[in-house]
């Protein structure tokens, strides 16, 4: 009896290790891909813009996927998935930071006069910058120690991820000239996620919610 329980546990642990390795692979792949394109001269005629845009894309994808973890868990009942929420969010923050640094260092060559003007006067840059600033305390307090220390307040604080990601989506939408296909998809996703969180399970899994609605 104890043996089979132990076997189940170790299987579970193994699965978790694979899951974490997979997330690391997924998280590092975009960076490797960009460096590879840089080294092989495949970034095109405007490499700074290309890197800037791709880092922005990747960051937003990670942030949206991070927010999808809880709904995914609710819908599928796959509880382990919650364990990869933190690395997903941190990769999102990492790529967002790289996105901002690419803008400040490579695109604007640290000409602060222009950077400050952009952040203050160009609304899409203002909100993008705000999103990054909002995510800094979330990245800092993502550790187990901080979760313990903050208790119930941690959950409240980390709801800022919704605000930051929404600002990120708006930033993405706003800087497009005419082709709003991808930004529109991002909007639909973030709206769907928020509707789910507001109207959704309130701690119960979807099967439970559906069950309760039958009555």
């Amino acid at each position: 009896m104890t043996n089979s329980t132990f076997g189940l546990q170790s299987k579970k642990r193994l699965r978790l290790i694979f899951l974490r390795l997979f997330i690391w692979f997924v998280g590092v792949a975009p960076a490797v891909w960009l460096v590879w394109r840089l080294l092989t001269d495949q970034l095109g005629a405007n490499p700074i813009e290309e890197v800037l845009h791709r880092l922005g894309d990747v960051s937003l994808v990670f942030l949206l996927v991070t927010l999808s973890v809880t709904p995914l868990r609710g819908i599928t009942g796959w509880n382990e998935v919650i364990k990869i929420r933190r690395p997903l969010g941190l990769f999102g923050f990492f790529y967002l930071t790289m996105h901002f640094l690419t803008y400040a260092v490579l695109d604007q060559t640290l000409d602060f006069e222009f950077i400050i003007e952009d952040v203050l006067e160009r609304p899409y840059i203002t909100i993008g910058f705000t999103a990054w600033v909002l995510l800094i305390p979330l990245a800092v307090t993502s550790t187990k120690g901080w979760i313990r220390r903050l208790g119930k307040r941690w959950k409240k604080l980390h709801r800022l991820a919704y605000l930051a990601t929404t600002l990120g989506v708006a930033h993405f939408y706003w800087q497009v000239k005419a082709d709003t296909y991808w930004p529109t998809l991002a909007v639909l996703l973030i709206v769907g996620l928020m509707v789910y969180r507001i109207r959704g399970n309130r701690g119960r899994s979807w099967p439970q919610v559906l069950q309760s609605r039958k009555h």
Partner: protein
Amino acid sequence: MLIGKSKNIPSSEITPEKMYVNRREFIGKSAAIGAGASLGWRDFDFGDLAERRHFQKDWSKVRSELDEELTPFGDVTSYNNFYEFGTGKSDPARNSHSLKPRPWTIEVGGLCDNPGTYDLADFIKPGKVEDRVYRMRCVEAWSMVIPWQGFSLKDVIDRAKPSGSARFVEFQTLNDVEQMPGQRYSVLRWPYIEGLRLDEAQHPLAMLVTGVYGTALPNQNGAPIRLIVPWKYGFKGIKSIVSMRFLEQMPTNTWKRSASQEYGFYANVNPDVPHPRWSQARERRIGEFRRRPTLMFNGYADEVASLYSGMDLRIHY
């Protein structure tokens, strides 16, 4: 010379001085790549990368004669805004093979004494085709320096003899989803429309372009014939032109129709009038690292500023 400060060059002198001095070499090199290239309208397969490099090497001499470096052929032909083939910068180079620039006809109409439908070859007077190096400044704050082949738009206007009431010229791009797959999506209203005030169109710097780097205009650059108005943002340079009409009223150009608070009819390069979403004070010259300051009228102020005297360029952006 055109791309430098042209204070001592009269506006009628439209071939860059140094380029002119260097013209024998320029044409010699062009001929050496085997396309009668200074005519700029013969077919040429530019697809092979080795050939692109070959091009650049042949043009290195010209580049060294100029005070601003030419943007390499490979960049000019791989980084394009041409939404008829997709909205990504590399989409036009990838997707524009479906465009058939021959045979090609251009309709000249509207308020003029000499309307007609012309075959491209009749439209281009070979003797008139000349080399000009222009800066190209995109509204997205990047820029290039490009050696075009073509002729003054004025030549065509003079032939058409616009009537006294004509005050504007309107151009249209081909509207054919078979050849332009991007037209399946309504990111913009098709066909693409651009226009100029008649006096702008008659300015000697305004150019109809049939070639670049001594070869026929590649599809992604607007084959077989496009407009270049070097003191305006790049989107004024309508590509793959099929019609030209003289109008009394100001036409609504495509980007203005798409977002009139952001893109106007005039679209003159102006570092002091920001785009509502970004600054136009600086630009990235393709191939350079640090942004450089954007010049008023893209550096052609001496030639064209008088066209806009008395106008508030913040209102007429």
